[in-house]
């Protein structure tokens, strides 16, 4: 009998398990804390020692989505009975709701800009990667290096030229401007990643489709794209995460119509004292789309891990 060198013993399995669980806890703890803080009341959120067990409150979420003014006792009485549950929560804090806050709009901006730039990046990236992978492009290596080189310095280093350019072109604080900007930043990554994936797909599949009477575009669309789904899914996740989380450009280039959620959330801090539950609620909701997107594409990601193993 022979044993593989890497055969785990019971002890090492335990050790590995503890390590993984420990790491997971360390990673998840801040996340859990943010989610929990979103459901705390104002005093609970800044209590010392910090409260792990607390009475849940929707205060943070109400404050996040509403615009309120601090009211005197007279004004509160003049306003009459609270009409809704969120009215009631606002009154309990001594405030009156004037209307919805801007968080919804900002969140929607994030969705439009994040998914818009990801989609554009995938369309352009796949087309460019396919061309680089399959055709004799003049100066191919130089072009690929140039594309990669756009990622060699932090994008924010060119923030001021971009700001000036955007002002000239009227792209400041527009959805289109932000979509173009995030696409430009992400495109080098997506071209390189996707080229790797497309290189892996044997060219014979397309040739077989050409022989079978399909045009080159049909061969690309019906044979290459399904094969590249794994690569496209994982690249899309990378692009979305960047565009979704981006803060510096969003602060600099957006202020109103096209402002995304990341620069908006900190501004909540300024409205009537440090409203940590509202900030935490905003952050929690902000996390959801990327999570949902990643979970939706999970099937393709897992397939990607085993893909190479079964091909030939």
């Amino acid at each position: 009998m022979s044993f593989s060198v890497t055969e785990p013993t019971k002890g090492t399995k335990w050790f590995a398990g503890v390590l993984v669980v420990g790491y997971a806890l360390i990673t998840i703890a801040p996340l859990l804390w943010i989610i929990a803080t979103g459901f705390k009341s104002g005093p609970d959120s800044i209590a010392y020692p910090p409260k792990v067990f607390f009475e849940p409150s929707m205060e943070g979420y109400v404050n996040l989505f509403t615009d309120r003014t601090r009211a005197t006792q007279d004004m509160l009485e003049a306003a009459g009975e609270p009409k809704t549950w969120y009215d009631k929560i606002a009154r309990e804090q001594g405030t009156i709701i004037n209307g919805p806050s801007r968080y919804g709009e900002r969140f929607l901006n994030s969705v439009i800009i994040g998914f818009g730039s990801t989609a554009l990046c995938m369309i352009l990236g796949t087309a460019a990667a396919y061309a680089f992978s399959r055709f004799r492009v003049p100066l191919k290596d130089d072009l690929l290096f140039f594309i990669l080189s756009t990622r060699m310095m932090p994008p924010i280093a060119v923030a001021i030229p971009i700001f000036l350019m955007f002002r000239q072109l009227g792209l400041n604080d527009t959805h289109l401007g932000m979509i173009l900007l995030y696409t430009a930043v992400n495109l080098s990554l997506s071209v390189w990643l996707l080229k790797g994936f497309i290189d892996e797909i044997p060219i014979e599949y397309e040739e077989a489709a050409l022989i079978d009477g399909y045009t080159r575009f049909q061969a690309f669309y019906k044979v290459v794209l399904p094969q590249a789904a794994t690569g496209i899914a994982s690249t899309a996740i990378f692009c979305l995460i960047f565009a979704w989380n981006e803060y510096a450009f969003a602060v600099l280039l957006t202020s109103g119509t096209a402002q995304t959620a990341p620069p908006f959330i900190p501004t909540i801090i300024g409205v009537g004292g440090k409203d940590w539950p509202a900030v935490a609620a905003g952050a929690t909701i902000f996390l959801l789309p990327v999570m949902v997107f990643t979970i939706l594409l999970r099937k393709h990601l897992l397939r990607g891990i085993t893909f190479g193993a079964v091909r030939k």
Partner: protein
Amino acid sequence: MAQIRIENVRKEFGAFTAVQSSSFTIEDGEFFMLLGPSGCGKTTTLRMMAGLELPTSGQIYIDGEEVGQKPASQRDIAFVFQMFALYPHMNVRGNISYPLKSQGMGASQIKAKVGEVAEILGITDILDRPVGGLSGGDRQRVALGRAIVRDPKAFFMDEPLGALDAEFREHMSEELRALHDRMEATTVYVTHDQLEAMQMGDKIVVMNHGVVEQFGVPQDIYDWPATKFVAQFIGSPPMNFLDFNGMIGAGHNEVRLNEVSIRVPDSIDGANGKLTLGVRPEHIRLDDGAPYRGRVLATEYLGTTQIVTLDTANGMVKARVPSSDKIRVGAATGLAFDERTITVFENDHGHALRSQANEGVLTHG
């Protein structure tokens, strides 16, 4: 089905010339082999016929129509790839029906056609399986099914047996040949395996360095090689070469090797200078009385025959003799050549000299 004619086809990749001005004709219904070592341009030639590469110059006619610059999708041909290239995201049925879908054929008709093809190839039971888990032979059959399903003008196959196990190749090559005979389809088949080419082909083109060395039926190519390359590439062991300085007159039928006169077929052109006498191992008899002498270096037992390696004044020679002959290593013996089978080559270009025997079959590229 169709005749395919290649005229002065040339292919350059940048500075590299893959195929140099080739011409040959593939008759309707022929099983045609493109044979040569790797890098000889045989696959490029096939891909040009299929439309996967466009020729730099020259014409390709399929069924009388010039298709040289047309894309593959408009040539109505089928191609079987070495790695089969079955679409991995479709099952067997999807793969076989894919060429029919591009023609806009109706679903019921496609179903009938796929069923018919599956019947011919004996794969009806795997039609709904994904292609991922299939054995090499089944993949091969599915690839063939995809090729024959729409009755194309010609089949092109690029080393279709190359990816199979040795034992299975034999079986598949018989299946392929039987399928061809049944469909009577013009088939062009690329291989580097000379045995496969001789065994399956109606005609063979032998290529080397992008040049067509010879073109003809297997027997002619084996018996009367047009160049030294063909003589060596085909046959195992290859043809023996005895280099000598000498001459052969036009109309004459003997050469002198090492002071020994050897009869050869009547020469037409005649030549003078560095020549090579080519003789197949099975056309050498070991005969103590023969004047041309050699010494036995080794013997290899092959069952019914044995290969005897001899050292002669003009180089090493291998003879194939019955294994019942008792041969002693180290012994001196005479070598008798079958005079009807000898080819004389001129050494500079390696071309065979024309003689009464090979005149009809020589076609230099």
